[in-house]
């Protein structure tokens, strides 16, 4: 019972999600995804959690919303719970008190009152079981970081190039977390696409000996590589102006900031990387 896979097609995610069934439109859900993933990235960094643990929390949270609806579950609360769980699973546990205090601060730019704190704590502790049950206690989630790092270390001989390439690839992995890529593709497939995007961004050549393409060991097809690259780059072109107007004030602030923070950095990447995708297609 319940052996449904955690991996879905883009169409399944966009058309049949529990939120969609509850009448939340795609635009709103996409915005919410952006919102809680950005929140988790910031929360994780403020808690000084390793990026692997942040990846974990974001995948948990995204998986949760493939089985529960945003109409009945607040994304920020679920996100806080997912960060709490991720810390324990990934070996960087943070106390429930720390997670909610920092979470509250990130969301509201102020300290919670005693009452708010206690209430949130109760919600997180009960909610933990609820999130774990919804996720069927499937706690084993692969991350792409080790895969990227190991492969680059093995395959790129010049240290300086290797460092540049891993860093660029990591950035693409992190930015890709705003999208639903982690629901569609396995960590190793995402790793391959990130290496690919990264290599063209920092202009490091990847080994290519005739018949054997380098991405084969990542168990990814050329078509998937193309799809992941494209969707990663789409992240940089999200336009949330409309949902920002519709949504509530506090939410707007966080997300809007997140968006702007990213924009300055990434548009550039996107422009350059667009050419890369053209290159993939022509291979």
């Amino acid at each position, binding site marked *: *019972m*319940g*052996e*449904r896979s955690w991996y879905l097609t883009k169409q399944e995610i966009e058309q049949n999600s529990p939120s969609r069934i*509850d*009448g*939340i439109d795609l635009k*709103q859900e996409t915005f*919410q995804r952006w919102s809680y993933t950005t929140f988790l990235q910031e929360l994780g960094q403020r808690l000084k959690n390793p990026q692997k643990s942040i990846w974990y929390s974001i995948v948990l949270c995204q998986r949760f919303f493939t*089985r*529960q*609806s*945003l*109409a*009945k*579950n*607040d*994304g*920020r*609360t*679920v996100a806080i719970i997912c960060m*709490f*769980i991720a810390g*324990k*699973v990934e*070996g960087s*546990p943070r*106390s*429930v008190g720390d997670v909610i205090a920092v979470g509250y601060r990130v*969301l509201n730019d102020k300290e919670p009152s005693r009452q708010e704190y206690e*209430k*949130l704590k109760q*919600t*997180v*502790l*009960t*909610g*933990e*079981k*609820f999130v*774990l*049950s*919804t*996720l*069927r*206690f*499937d*706690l*084993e989630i692969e991350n792409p970081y080790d895969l990227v790092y190991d492969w680059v270390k093995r395959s790129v001989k010049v240290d300086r190039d290797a460092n540049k390439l891993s860093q660029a690839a990591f950035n693409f992995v992190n930015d890709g977390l705003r999208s639903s890529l982690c629901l569609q593709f396995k960590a190793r497939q995402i790793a391959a696409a990130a290496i690919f995007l990264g290599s063209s961004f920092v202009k490091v050549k990847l080994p290519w000996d005739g018949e054997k393409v380098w991405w084969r060991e990542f168990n990814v097809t050329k078509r998937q590589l193309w799809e992941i690259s494209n969707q990663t780059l789409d992240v940089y072109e999200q336009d949330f102006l409309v949902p920002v107007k519709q949504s509530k004030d506090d939410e707007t602030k966080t997300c809007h900031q997140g968006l702007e923070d990213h924009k300055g950095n990434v548009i550039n990447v996107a422009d350059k990387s667009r050419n890369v995708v053209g290159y993939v297609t022509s291979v």
Partner: protein
Amino acid sequence: MAVADFGKLNLEEPPPVWGSRSVDCFEKLEQIGEGTYGQVYMAKDIKTGEIVALKKIRMDNEREGFPITAIREIKILKKLHHENVIHLKEIVTSPGRDRDDQGKPDNNKYKGGIYMVFEYMDHDLTGLADRPGLRFTIPQIKCYMKQLLTGLHCCHVNQVLHRDIKGSNLLIDNEGNLKLADFGLARLFSHDHSGNLTNRVITLWYRPPELLLGATKYGPAIDMWSVGCIFAELLHAKPILPGKNEHEQLNKIFELCGSPDENNWPGVSKMPWFNNFKPARVLKRRVKEFFKHFDRHALELLEKMLVLDPSQRINAKDALDAEYFWTDPLPCDPKSLPTYESSHEFQTKKKRQQQRQNEEAAKRQKVQHPQQQYSRLPPLQHGGQSHAAPHWHAGPNHPTNNAPPQVPAGPSHHLYGKQRGPNRYPPSGNQSGGYNQTRGGYSGGSYPPQGRGAPYVAGPRGPSGGAYGVGAPNYTQGGQYGGSGRGQNPMGGSRNQQYGWQQ
């Protein structure tokens, strides 16, 4: 439709159909374990009729929510799929109370407990070894050791350290399969041993010297030390290093394996606690001398396991290639092993309590009981066919229903384990000493080791009594003498003794 407000969660509906099932899908049959970790029940899947073990995850004292040890255990068990590793079938939740403390209706579906569902196993190795009169055969010991090493190899290639290998965490079913259980202390490790890990793991008697000397960077070799201790214990018929505290434990290790120095263990003098614990005088390695009654190949393998320096200790894979497993008598097929009545620490403990009460009653009445003491019997040294002896089937699902008649033992029964043959290792440590983590495979019970003793004497005994005496109920079932074609000698005379219930 608007998104939910801050703090809102959908707690009033049960998990979606593809989420965790409810514990109501199972019928609890009886409790088989109890410990710090939580209760363990034998239960039946109502839909399929399958018998399982339900291990409740205790949440009462968890200020930090779902215990991190349980999270680790679940994560690791879901990663390990191997016939010699206990199979975690699923996690189920209990819906909890329908009313809250004030008696108001409480619709929160997530207030109840959480259970891990395991395949049901009839025994643990310690419980089995401690049965009065029970003797393992050499092919049987080889069979268990091979399965233990195979399961552990699976853990180690998946970068899992078990960190609590001991007899009561090795579960055995009635088909002779041995499975590693209780991964509550297990951890993932990296090959470069980079992370700092705690050295307060592994039950004292099975804890390797590097942990006792304070190492915080270690690897799979720690489990192999424990395997060595178990291996010797099976052949020697009693625990080989029963220290009462950490200091005594190290001394016992040094008395057996010699004192460590920079020659036999480069770097040992820089271990955190080396100066506190280094032996006062130089001791010679005496493994061969202590265990000279072991056969050559067993001793050879044991020597490679009980190596002080973890970097020189044999790994699971190489141990499986050892001559020991490839020379006569070969390890037997698990399926050819006899079946035994269910023996879980919890049940045995309950029976023991019952028996103590009887004893006390007897004392009050000044009734004389014959003095009886039990100790494990060393394995029989004979050929590979021996395991084809009669075996006894317990009831398939309710083994305890067919339990042998319980004859109260003599008043000194509870001294089990104290009075044993040549006392190289003063067994005084058996009392309660040094169990840092004592949790049975499912049970997590923190029972001092003397609690393992099986409390009852089974039936009549004699030259061939072992087989017959076990339980009249089985006698009429037919087939217990090898109806499946395994036993060729129903009246097998002295052969029967090897699994017998004789003292």
